[in-house]
């Protein structure tokens, strides 16, 4: 077909509100837009004047799906500003908490948002009718992650136990002990999930990505590391803003990030996996190979496999941390207000999440900057839409539409995150 228009007014099975617009003229894709219309909430503005101790609770509300990610980036950035170092046992507990969020967030995406596409289902409830044992598996994984977050963070959504300097209270060994069985079962369930999704059919699609993720010499990255890319970027988090910029585009409510030198890039599970495969556990590595994941793996439709690998890793890593857990003598190190600037990035389930805060001598925030993974991926997502559509214009319109929705869901976009800071005025400028 020569001229065509694909318009999905309200994208389903994504977190937040966005539409998808594709225009084809004379057999060429002329417009491929992922347009976010979620209203702004002005987090960066109202954080000004708040006490630094409030930032982890406030920024958690940017996203109900990944509140731990916001709390983690916030406390690490603020601790840098305040010159605080966290002792290893508290550091481990934070990693344990993050494992829980990775598990529940990935399980939500794999089973509720992504897998139905591969099976031709409208939703996970159809999965309940046709493959109830698989939905049970998914619910079990999600519940395991939620249970971990709740036992350590107080509750699943917007946990209350994270503070600058550590935690409000650290659980005893006994309180955490019941998690061992749960997580051992979750590791098995994640492996079974991986085998299941490895049997899906994947369209042949391998864009020329620049992957960006944290990288740490000893561990698969969560709370620490340098920012690296598949094209040689290797910088300290402190230099993030020197290399990445955000730009405004007329069609969307959220800013697009790009690498100053090279443009679009990809963050998230696929990027983490490609840049940190060597730091996965041996079982997770073997499972990834067995599932047929390449290295590098370039097909974004296979991000569902990577999420399953990361669930397996997160369950195992959580188990390892639980085995060695000794209740730290103090729940938090003392923190006193002082003026300063702090920056941190952590790996949210959806990818790199950057925070910067400026504080005055009383510990009140004078500036905040937050760059979530979805805004970083937007530009690359649109390039995927354009490239995928160009290669599949022969598909019947309904099929093309569904495939393009799936191309969006590959990213697990979190639109509530992407628009917390959005700038709405239009700046008319030539794109590309």
């Amino acid at each position, binding site marked *: 077909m020569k001229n065509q228009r694909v318009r999905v007014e309200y994208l*389903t099975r994504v977190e937040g*509100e966005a539409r998808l617009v594709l225009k084809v003229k004379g057999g060429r894709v002329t417009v491929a837009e992922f347009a976010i219309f979620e209203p702004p909430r002005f*987090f960066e503005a109202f954080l000004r004047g708040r006490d630094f101790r409030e930032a982890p609770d406030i920024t958690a509300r940017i996203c109900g799906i990944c509140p731990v990610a916001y709390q983690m980036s916030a406390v690490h950035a603020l601790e840098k500003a305040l010159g605080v170092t966290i002792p290893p046992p508290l550091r481990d507990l934070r990693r344990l908490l993050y494992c829980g969020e990775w598990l529940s967030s990935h399980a939500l995406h794999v089973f509720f948002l992504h897998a139905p596409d591969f099976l031709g289902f409208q939703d996970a409830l159809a999965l309940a009718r046709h493959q109830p044992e698989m939905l049970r598996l998914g619910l079990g994984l999600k519940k395991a992650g939620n249970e971990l977050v709740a036992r350590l963070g107080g509750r699943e959504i917007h946990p209350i136990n994270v*503070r600058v300097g550590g935690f409000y209270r650290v659980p005893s060994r006994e309180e955490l002990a019941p998690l061992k069985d749960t997580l051992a079962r979750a590791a098995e369930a994640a492996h079974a999930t991986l085998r299941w999704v490895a049997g899906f059919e994947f369209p042949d699609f391998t864009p020329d990505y620049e992957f960006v993720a944290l990288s740490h010499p000893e561990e698969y990255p969560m709370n620490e590391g340098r920012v690296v890319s598949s094209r040689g970027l290797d910088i300290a988090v402190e230099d993030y803003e020197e290399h990445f910029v955000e730009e405004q585009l007329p069609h969307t409510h959220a800013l697009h990030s790009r690498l100053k030198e090279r443009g679009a890039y990809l963050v998230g599970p696929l990027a983490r996996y490609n840049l940190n495969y060597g730091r996965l556990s041996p079982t997770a590595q073997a499972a990834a190979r067995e599932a047929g994941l390449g290295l590098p793996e370039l097909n974004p439709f296979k991000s569902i496999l990577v999420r399953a690998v990361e669930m397996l890793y997160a369950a195992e890593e959580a188990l390892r941390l639980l085995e060695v857990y000794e209740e730290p003598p103090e729940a938090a190190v003392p923190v006193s207000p002082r003026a300063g600037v702090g920056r941190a990035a952590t790996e949210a389930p959806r990818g790199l999440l950057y925070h910067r805060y400026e504080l005055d001598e009383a510990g009140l925030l004078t500036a905040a900057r937050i760059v979530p993974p979805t805004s970083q991926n937007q530009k690359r997502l649109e390039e995927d839409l354009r490239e995928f559509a160009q290669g599949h214009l022969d598909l019947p319109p309904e099929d093309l539409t569904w495939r393009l929705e799936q191309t969006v869901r590959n990213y697990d976009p979190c639109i509530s995150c992407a628009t917390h800071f959005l700038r709405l005025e239009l700046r008319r400028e030539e794109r590309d």
Partner: protein
Amino acid sequence: MPKKKPTLAVWKFTSCDGCQLSLLNLEEELVELADCLDIAYFPEASRRLLPGPYDLSFVEGSVSVPEHVEQIRRVRRLSRVLIPFGTCATSGGIQALRNFTDVRDYARLVYERPELLPVLAESTPISQHVPVELELQGCPPNKAQVLAAVAAFLHGGPPPRTPASVCLECKRAGHICVLVSRSLPCLGPVTQAGCGALCPGWHRPCYGCFGPKETPKTASLARWFTERLGAREAELVRAFRLFYANAPAFRLESQTHEEPTRQG
């Protein structure tokens, strides 16, 4: 003949998606819920979107942009029973912090041309725009509350209400009072029960994320904070002006402690 199941719709306004997630977090109960209700409109969970009217609607999020005003009226027309749930839908949410300033001041901080911002000056609860059958407070609301509301809808019982403060739950749980014994500024005495006294159980003061209880004695609590904990006025403003900043009782209390130079 099988009886036709009542239909459920889940709507999003300005929010973090956490309340919708509290529905998905029902896990096994969600599958049971789908046996009792036809999930007819839940875009975050399904591509299948059936046209209304709907028997039961849950609404997440606050009214914060001009088009929301008409949208919520439409949702009301389409819904037999309408239940706003969560802090945003029941009070305006954290984004209602802008209600205490000129939203254009916020906009100027980040936007080059703030006059083009199509946002309302205030973020407001659903009930300020349309009548509602029940409100579920909490950031996020407790899963048990959500289930109880659905059960009441299905079986016609009275809607779940606990007109008590967090203190009651705290005493029941046997926690040591963080306000008295640890001298921490706890909002528990004025905050609606429902969380199970979560924060005091983790040795931190309640920060009021379930909003004001009925007839909260905010002034006497503020006086306690000042006289016994040495809290400064600015700290009192921040304490009452957080996730339920726009709820009348907390809003008035925070304004009481503000600099007199501020404009109404």
